[in-house]
């Protein structure tokens, strides 16, 4: 199983993180990505493939105090 | 006393010196180039990393006592918390007309923080050998005095006499000679003192952290080191030879003592050596910054003024009269309300009776600054082979007299409230 931001996402299996983010319409400059609790730096998006068992978090800023 | 006197003449002629020693002494006194660099640590001296000296000296050098006005003083007295700027105003000449107001404020702070308690202790000099040439001190190595170092048996005898008088807190002192009064010797004396007293303080040569840790283990819990003057240039002209000549190592002694596990540390400038307002500022800031860095530590201040010594009756504290001393003590109390303040027997009984009401929280009683003469002094027995005194005391009251006089002032004499842990 693959989990992205808490949702099951088997359709991402085998995709690079870059491809996945672009296919979902994320603005790369505004987000950060964590794969299995390790941050994936932006330069590694293209070379990092999403595999079965991955838990991925994609975060951004929002209003907060 | 000549009230316009600007400098003391400290130099004493000593006809008993060998020609070589006399030559060396004269050379040190007259030729600054013959003296070592007072800012350079010696090889056996530990160097710790600390920014406190820089902060204290920068503030002292920038301090201009004459720029403060009556308005600054009144503003300082109106503030709940005394800032460093307020403290500078309180130390300035502009504060002198407000001494009574300062005393009232200081009295409130003292009573708020210490209640009506006044602590009593006594000093015990166990040796007067010294390897330093500090021109104003009776123990200096070129002064012709009778030298003595007590054996452990003699120390124990002194302690018994003192403890029998009722004293529970002792401050052990040596001249500053590491070769004569080794750390082991002082440590052994601490172990003895633990048997007779509940609180053991030391006023010895500055040493390294591991030595302080050892002495703490032996039973000492308090270390007092007087910087004498915080003006390094003036310091250089007064401490002509020996370990004590090294200004920064002495400055950092209290911090090393705390690093070594001591519970408390004491500070002082010897007022009259240099500009007393600047020295008072530096002393208090030394306490202030160290307290912030080591908030668990107990801090105390003393405020000795120069006194006559054996072979030089003329030494005096110049422009630091009782009023100025009282001003400094009130300012210390207002700026550092939590700090203990000790007033020694260098001051008169009338001054000490007055100042314990205002600012002072600890006094000595039954004092001798000589070596091995407590039995003679306490019990009137014949004086045997004793070592000469460091300076002349002004208040010779015994513990009993001091105890009664403190009560007479409406205060409560406390011999000890201390637990060694």
């Amino acid at each position: 199983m693959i989990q992205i931001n808490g949702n099951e996402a088997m359709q991402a299996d085998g995709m690079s993180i870059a491809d996945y983010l672009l296919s979902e319409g994320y603005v790369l400059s505004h987000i950060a990505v964590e794969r299995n609790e390790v941050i994936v730096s932006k330069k590694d998006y293209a070379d990092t493939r999403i595999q079965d068992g991955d838990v991925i978090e994609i975060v951004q800023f929002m209003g907060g105090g | 006393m000549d009230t316009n006197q600007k400098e003391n003449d400290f130099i004493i002629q000593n006809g008993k010196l060998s020609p070589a020693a006399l030559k060396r002494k004269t050379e040190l006194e007259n030729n600054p180039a013959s003296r070592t660099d007072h800012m350079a640590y010696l090889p056996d001296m530990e160097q710790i990393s600390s920014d406190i000296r820089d902060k204290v000296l920068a503030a002292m050098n920038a301090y201009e006592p004459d720029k403060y006005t009556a308005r600054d003083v009144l503003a300082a007295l109106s503030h709940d918390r005394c800032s460093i700027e307020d403290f500078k105003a309180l130390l300035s000449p502009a504060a002198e007309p407000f001494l009574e107001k300062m005393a009232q404020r200081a009295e409130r702070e003292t009573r708020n923080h210490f209640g009506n308690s006044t602590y009593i202790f006594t000093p015990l000099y166990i040796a007067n050998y010294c390897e330093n040439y500090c021109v104003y001190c009776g123990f200096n190595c070129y002064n012709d005095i009778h030298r003595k170092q007590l054996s452990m048996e003699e120390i124990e005898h002194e302690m018994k006499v003192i403890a029998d008088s009722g004293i529970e807190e002792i401050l052990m002192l040596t001249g500053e000679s590491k070769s004569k009064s080794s750390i082991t010797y002082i440590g052994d004396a601490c172990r003895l003192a633990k048997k007779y007293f509940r609180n053991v303080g030391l006023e010895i040569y500055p040493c390294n952290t591991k030595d302080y840790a050892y002495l703490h283990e032996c039973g000492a819990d308090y270390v007092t080191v007087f910087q004498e003057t915080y003006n390094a240039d003036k310091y250089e002209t007064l401490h002509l030879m020996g370990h004590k000549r090294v200004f920064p190592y002495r400055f950092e002694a209290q911090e090393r003592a705390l690093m070594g596990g001591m519970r408390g540390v004491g500070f002082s400038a010897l007022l009259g050596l240099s500009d007393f307002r600047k020295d008072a500022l530096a002393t208090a800031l030394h306490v202030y910054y160290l307290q912030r860095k080591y908030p668990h530590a107990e801090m105390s201040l003393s405020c000795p003024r120069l006194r006559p010594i054996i072979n030089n009756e003329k030494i005096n504290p110049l422009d630091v009269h009782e009023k100025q001393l009282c001003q400094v003590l009130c300012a210390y109390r207002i700026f550092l309300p939590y700090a203990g303040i000790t007033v020694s027997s260098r001051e008169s009984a009338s001054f000490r009776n007055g100042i314990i009401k205002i600012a002072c929280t600890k006094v000595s009683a039954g004092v001798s600054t000589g070596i091995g003469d407590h039995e003679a002094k306490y019990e009137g027995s014949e004086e045997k082979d004793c070592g000469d005194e460091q300076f002349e005391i002004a208040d010779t009251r015994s513990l009993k007299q001091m105890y009664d006089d403190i009560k007479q002032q409406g205060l409560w004499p406390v011999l000890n409230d201390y637990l060694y842990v």
Partner: protein
Amino acid sequence: MIENDTFTLGGHTFSSRFILGSGKYNLDLIRAAVSDAGAQIITLAVRRANTKDSENILDYIPEGVTLLPNTSGARNADEAVRIARLAREMGCGDFVKIEIMHDSKYLLPDNYETIKATEILAKEGFIVMPYMYPDLNAARDLVNAGAASIMPLASPIGSNKGLATKEFIQILIDEIDLPVIVDAGIGKPSQACEAMEMGAAAIMANTAIATAGNIPEMAKAFGLAIEAGRRAYLSGLGRVLNKGGEASDPLTGFLHN
């Protein structure tokens, strides 16, 4: 002295002493609030991204304003560290406000976990601004852990109850050498002003502005109040008359020269 009055956080110098929160209000109002308040620092939270939001808060924050991500949502030091690292990965600088709570009723910060997180993040080069309950011992630990400032709460976060912890904040201001920024609970400009008069280095406010009738106007009111309090502090407050007479016998009568 008043004209060039600045303060420094992790080597960055600021002239505005108002740190604005961006929570609980419309993105459209952020630009106005920042400019009317004269704020140079704005806090942000880190959350899961949602691609359905076409708008991103970063697009609404004026150029040159320093971003201060918080770790809200973290319940312990590990979670705070994780959130801080993600925030830095977004490439908006090294600042982080540590906010760790595992009390959902009062939302009080956990000082112990906050100290642990501060130590880890300071070592990683973050400019760490810990939100904390005003306890002197914890504040000293935060200093030793490498914090760039201390952010004690005035009252529970979001409560607008004002300076409930005034005495304790004063102790921190007196004893801690870092900037003390009063955070959380400040509900009115007068309270912000009072904290500045006490010697606080800056004020952080969010809910007071977010729940005001006119957000940009309230932001401006806070900005003015903070500046007024700062000027009063620098000027040295005047005296307060106390009742009570003076002793008739002088204390210093024993002195002679």
